[in-house]
């Protein structure tokens, strides 16, 4: 078991190296020259060449890559071309709102979706079930920005119960203002995950409820509630946890849009600004950061399987 955990942790290293290589190449090979963007519309060819020299962009690509990896290992993601600040510092400044938004979103989604899916499965074919399924299809279909503006219109502009935009840190400004500001973006972003997770939970629980050991539990005289919580849910958990993991990956895309809609100063906004400005070091840093977060989440999910199901031993 310990050996499996060690092997699984070590196996993330080649993946991270590959990701780093791809990130590096993808951006170098993309059309567009940051040096000419920095130099501006009226720059001469010499100006552009000088800037390119300063940034190291005229060196051979292998040298650029090695230089980049070397600094990466020391925790240096480079400096922003435009602001001149270290990328790690920029990410550090913006990480909290994004992390908080992701955390509240996924927590809210799981807390709502798992019971909803279980209920739908338990009452499969009933009105409740049909409502949950209908909600799921709807949740998949509505884009985040459309839903965001609809919710803003209802809760902020018409009812006036929640703010239109902004972010308050729970650490410096207290949990009350934090929740007040995070609720709307979080709910908006979570709808699609509720749909996804509820659907998967429903399918998985329906399958498990057909199993022989559920019948055994009934034969013991166990109540339906306990059958669901004790026997069905844990057996249904592996596919649900997998989908939650996928959900966290998809969340990254959703965060970018949601932060724009609700004007939250997080990583999503940083991504957007960097892409528009072709600020290579920031884009690289962010893609790497998100990739590593995702690799880490995958690791946690893989390891959680062994806790959920004793039959899974590698």
């Amino acid at each position, binding site marked *: 078991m310990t050996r499996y955990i060690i092997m699984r942790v070590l196996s993330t290293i080649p993946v991270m190296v590959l990701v780093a290589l791809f990130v590096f190449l993808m951006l170098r090979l993309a059309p567009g020259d940051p040096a000419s963007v920095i130099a501006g519309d009226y720059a001469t060819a010499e100006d552009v060449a000088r800037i390119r020299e300063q940034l190291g962009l005229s060196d051979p690509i292998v040298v650029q890559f090695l230089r980049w990896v070397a600094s990466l290992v020391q925790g240096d993601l480079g400096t922003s071309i435009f602001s001149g600040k270290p990328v790690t510092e920029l990410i550090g400044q913006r990480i909290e709102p994004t992390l908080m938004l992701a955390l509240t979103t996924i927590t809210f989604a799981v807390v709502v979706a798992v019971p909803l899916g279980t209920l739908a499965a338990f009452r499969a074919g009933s009105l409740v079930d049909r409502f949950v399924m209908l909600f799921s299809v709807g949740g998949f279909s509505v884009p985040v920005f459309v839903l965001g503006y609809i919710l803003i219109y209802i809760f902020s502009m018409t009812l006036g119960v929640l703010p239109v935009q902004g972010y308050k840190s729970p650490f410096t400004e207290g949990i009350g203002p934090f929740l007040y500001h995070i609720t709307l973006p979080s709910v908006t972003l979570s709808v699609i995950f509720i749909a996804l997770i509820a659907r998967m939970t429903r399918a998985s629980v329906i399958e498990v409820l057909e199993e022989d050991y559920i*019948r055994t539990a*009934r034969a*013991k*005289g166990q109540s339906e509630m*306990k059958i669901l919580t004790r026997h069905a849910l844990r057996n249904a958990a592996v596919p649900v946890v997998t989908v939650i993991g996928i959900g966290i990956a998809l969340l990254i895309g959703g965060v970018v849009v949601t932060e724009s809609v609700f004007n939250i100063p997080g990583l999503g906004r940083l991504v957007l600004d960097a892409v528009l400005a072709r600020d290579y070091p920031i884009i690289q840093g962010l893609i790497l950061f998100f990739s590593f977060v995702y690799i880490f989440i995958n690791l946690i999910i893989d390891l959680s399987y062994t806790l959920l*199901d004793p039959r899974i031993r590698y």
Partner: protein
Amino acid sequence: MSILEVTNLTVKLPDGADRPFAIEDVTLKVEKGQILCIVGESGSGKSVTAFSVMGLADRRALTPVSGTIKLDGEDILDIDDARLRKLRGEKMSMIFQEPMTALNPVLRVGDQISEMLEIHTDLTRSQRKTRVIEAMTDVRLPDPEKMYRSYPHQLSGGQRQRIMIAMALTLEPQLLIADEPTTALDVTTQAQILKLIKDIQRRKGMGVMFITHDFGVVAEIADHVAVMKHGRIVEQGSVAEVLGAPKDPYTQKLIAAVPSMIPPEREVATGQIALETDDLVKTYGQAGLLGQGRVVKAVREVDLTVRRGETLGIVGESGSGKSTVARCIMRLVDPTSGEVLINGENIASLREGQLRSHRRDIQIVFQDPYRSLNPRRTVGQSIVEGPVNFGLSMNEAKARAAELMQVVGLSPDALERFPHQFSGGQRQRICIARALAMEPMILIADEAVSALDVSVQAQVLDLLDDVRKRFDLAMLFITHDLRVAAQICDRIMVMNKGEVVESGFTSTVYANPQHDYTRALLAAAPGQIGPAA
């Protein structure tokens, strides 16, 4: 005094089923301290009867429309869910066919037994644990303290069934319902479990309703017998009456269909050797971080020969390696070492490309006809696929398929239909036709009749014997069932833990087994009620 009285019970099937009632007008009694066996083939309604008594039948699909089910005087069709839940476990308990799936895979077995006490008693955690250990000791599980913490997949089939029995009996119910509890077990394990059930039942004076399809098991365990067919009880009485002098023609037919342990006279085959293995070895294992990890020897140095026109039986319990031998010969798995000679040519280490031309020479029929046919393809498509891959034109392949349908006793228009439109026995006939379409020299039957009802089993055995003669096939017949092996094999090989412990002509081995393991197997075969017994 009877603990259970079922009177005129009729249970309706949902609209659109093949018959209106799952069970009709069923009347039976289980006396205290006695075992009632309900015998029948699949679809006879025996399980519906059992599940109705437990209140476990889905009432939306299976609606009781008339009759009563009195458990110790209380009609369970008349009580609410809470009361029913209380009766389950306290007054009546149930054990099931497949102990692997009947136990929750993610909970420790001790906790699953303990759950019974948690639901029905106010005992503290440590008191419950003591009771569970007692119950586990009672069913003779080794080292119950340690086994308490095991998960189901870490136990053997027999141990799992003992856990189920311990769970069912912790609260000392007056009625135990056993639904084919030994069908999924090996024959020696089956004998032990049957003995255990009978011992405990005697000791506690419990009533038992025992569902089975196997008259051998009935002979071992029953006091009373009820025979069911198409939802009705056709005959019931004491075991001596029903087995000794069956009145109903259906009972007579079922008893006659039970294969006898006495092998019939068979001619010695003299055809050329079609299949031979030499020192065949298959080991499974993973390379460890440092050198060899855990290695399992599934097959150890197996030598066998099969002549054309001859049937060689490989008999053994689960894990004996008998199916691995078949898979090595088919090259569905790669042998670790040794030779597999097909018509004299060694195919054991041929690469996939070279192997292809040999594939048609060996065909296999699997155990489960439900899962070995693609449900989305018509029977005809499944049968012609192989021959067409080997260069036959579509029209020729179809013509051959139509001929083969007649050989296996089906009508040629069956080719246009889908597998789900056939019964289990018919599907197995289709699988045999599919194998024959390749014009093989060697036919492997891997537990090919084990999933079939006993009357259908006899017919499929006849068919296999018939096609062996007709096409001069070398047949390798793999089975765990000694009764079946006795009927169809010219020679048998007994395997245990990957090794051949004994082999010889079937009649010789059965009459005079040399190895202890063979003797144990033969002794464990249930209800030796063949004509000579």
